[in-house]
């Protein structure tokens, strides 16, 4: 098991290097703008631009820049400095992490809880109106782009512009440390929107698994033993949750990607908005840092999910 985890971690590092290289090349070959020009002020002299390029190291060949960047990241844990504020990228990210973590953790809880609940109800009542309604709703949630869902949610429910103004709208985010109740209120809509798609996938998976499981032989055995139907259902859910759990690791990336857009739609000052502004202004170190952080998170979570799976299913043994 230890060997398995170590091997997975080493592979994780390889993946991160590849992610690094891809973002690096992508934004330098196809930059949204030349960062040196953006920094040089109005009508700059070509000489000034050249000087700035030299200071930022943009005049060196790409592979040299990449190598220097990787060296700093992996050996000194230094993610560089923003082209604009000169602040360390790591510090910028850490400052904005609480908002993103709030959004993602709440979203994930709602995703798992809501998805499982709907999936179980639909799976046990296949063909009923409850099943059809929830699966249709799930299909809508899967199909709709999250930023659009976010805008619709604001249009319908935001306290400032909404038709039914019941939840705080965009720009209402308050850090947890300042006012927990306002923090909670401001995140209700973003949580729902960010969880909707993944919860829908989870619900559909859970429904299918549970419906299959309930016709398994061991469920018949459980009934033949004279267990009450509630206990029988519990055994079915226990079996059905495993494959859905695997999907959790895969869906995590989508959740994170969705969170980025939702932060922008709801104007939440998190890593997503940081990344968004960095892309608009070609702030390469910040783009790199945020992408790398997201990739690292997904790699680690997938290892965690796989290791947990061995505990969930005794038949799985890693070596």
């Amino acid at each position, binding site marked *: 098991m230890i060997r398995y985890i170590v091997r997975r971690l080493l592979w994780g590092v390889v993946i991160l290097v590849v992610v690094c290289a891809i973002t690096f090349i992508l934004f330098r070959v196809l930059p949204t703008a030349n960062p040196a020009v953006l920094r040089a002020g109005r009508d700059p002299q070509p000489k000034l631009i050249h000087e700035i390029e030299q200071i930022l190291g943009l005049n060196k060949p790409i592979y040299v820049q990449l190598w220097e960047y990787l060296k700093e990241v992996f050996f000194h844990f230094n993610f560089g400095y923003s082209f604009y504020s000169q602040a360390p990228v790591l510090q910028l990210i850490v400052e904005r992490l609480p908002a993103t973590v709030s959004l993602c953790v709440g979203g994930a809880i709602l995703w798992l809880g809501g998805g499982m609940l709907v999936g179980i109800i639909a799976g046990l009542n296949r063909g009923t109106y409850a099943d059809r309604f929830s699966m249709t709703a799930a299909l809508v949630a899967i199909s709709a782009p999250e930023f659009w869902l976010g805008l619709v949610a604001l249009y319908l429910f935001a306290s400032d512009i909404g038709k039914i103004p019941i939840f705080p709208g965009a720009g209402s985010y308050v850090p947890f440390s300042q006012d927990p109740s306002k923090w909670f209120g401001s995140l209700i809509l973003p949580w729902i929107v960010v969880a909707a798609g993944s919860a829908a996938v989870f619900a559909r998976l859970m429904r299918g698994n549970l419906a299959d499981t309930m016709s*398994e*032989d*061991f469920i*018949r*055995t*459980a*009934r*033949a*033993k*004279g*267990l*009450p139907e509630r*206990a029988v259902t519990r*055994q079915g859910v*226990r*079996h059905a949750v*495993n494959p859905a759990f695997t999907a959790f690791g895969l869906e995590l990336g989508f959740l994170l990607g969705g969170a980025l857009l939702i932060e922008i739609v709801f104007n939440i000052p998190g890593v997503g908005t940081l990344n968004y502004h960095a892309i608009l202004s070609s702030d390469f170190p910040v783009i790199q840092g945020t992408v790398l952080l997201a990739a690292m998170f997904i790699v680690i979570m997938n290892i965690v999910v796989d290791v947990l799976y061995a505990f*969930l*299913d*005794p*038949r799985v043994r890693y070596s």
Partner: protein
Amino acid sequence: MSTEELLLRVEGLSVAFPTEDGVVRAVDGISYGVTKGKTLGIVGESGSGKTVASLTTLGLTRRQGADIKGRIMFEDRDLVAMSEDDLRKVRGNEVAMVFQDPLSSLHPLYTVGKQLVEAVRAHRDVSKKAARERAIEMLGYVGIPDPARRIDDFPHEFSGGMRQRAMIAMALMNEPRLLIADEPTTALDVTVQAQILALMERLQRELGMAIVIITHDLGVVAEMADDIAVMYAGNIVEYATAQTLFERPEHPYTWGLLRSIPTIEGQTWGSMRERSGNVERRELVPIQGSPPSLISPPSGCRFHPRCPYAEPSHAEIVPLLQPVAEEPQHVSACLLADEYRRRLWERLRTGDTPAEAIAGAGEEAA
């Protein structure tokens, strides 16, 4: 077989499942009885309704939307009319069941011990510790070595035979008076099959419970059963004591089953050989065709499309279960004349093919 001794009495049981293609009459008016402490074998091909009949005994076909008619009297209680909650108290308690494939019948994510413990605690208010001790005791009793350690294993860590032993231990946790075993040996290796049958015989001897053993293999019931019911397409076509059935089978379908059991050098296995009175066979003779659709079963005698001896009128007349001449305990549903049927069997048992038997029996009559 007087009525007072009967533990289970199935009377006119019909089970039908509505499906999109039509109503499947899986069981169509069958009656049988299980005597206290004795063994009834129900034999038939897959799709003959033998499993459905037994699942219905435990009420396990109810949630599939089955339309159930008739009575299943367990002593003086009707299991068909019983409420779901009352029936739940009978299941796994007074009547227990063992299934065909022990691997898929055990929950893969729970230890064997947990699954045994919950079987007790579903019916008895005992502590987990006491239930666990009982589980270890039962595992040892059914022949699992080192039960105190193996109880915490998962089903996939057991061998096939051990899994079936664990299933049997689970069924016996509450000392049932009736054990229904549905193809208990079919999924097992041949050597393990014999062990499991021997185990069941020993348990019956020591615990005195009645057993219904469902199988497609007459060899299995030859060892164990006191009475045998042969089912075909939802009906019982022959019903007799095991001794009688092997010595003087009356129904062409039973003949087919007897002649399709593999043997070594033309001889039947062990006690089968003794019971079937030196049947000599030159080769394995399969029953032609396949089991009929239960949505629209053949008219008249349901076996007539596959019966080598059928006459045109058999497609119209429905045969009834009737006592065989001079054998009140032996009933059979066949339209052939008794005399002719006996002559056929005399020829078949010496190794004639059905065609030879028909020719021979015809000559004798002429």
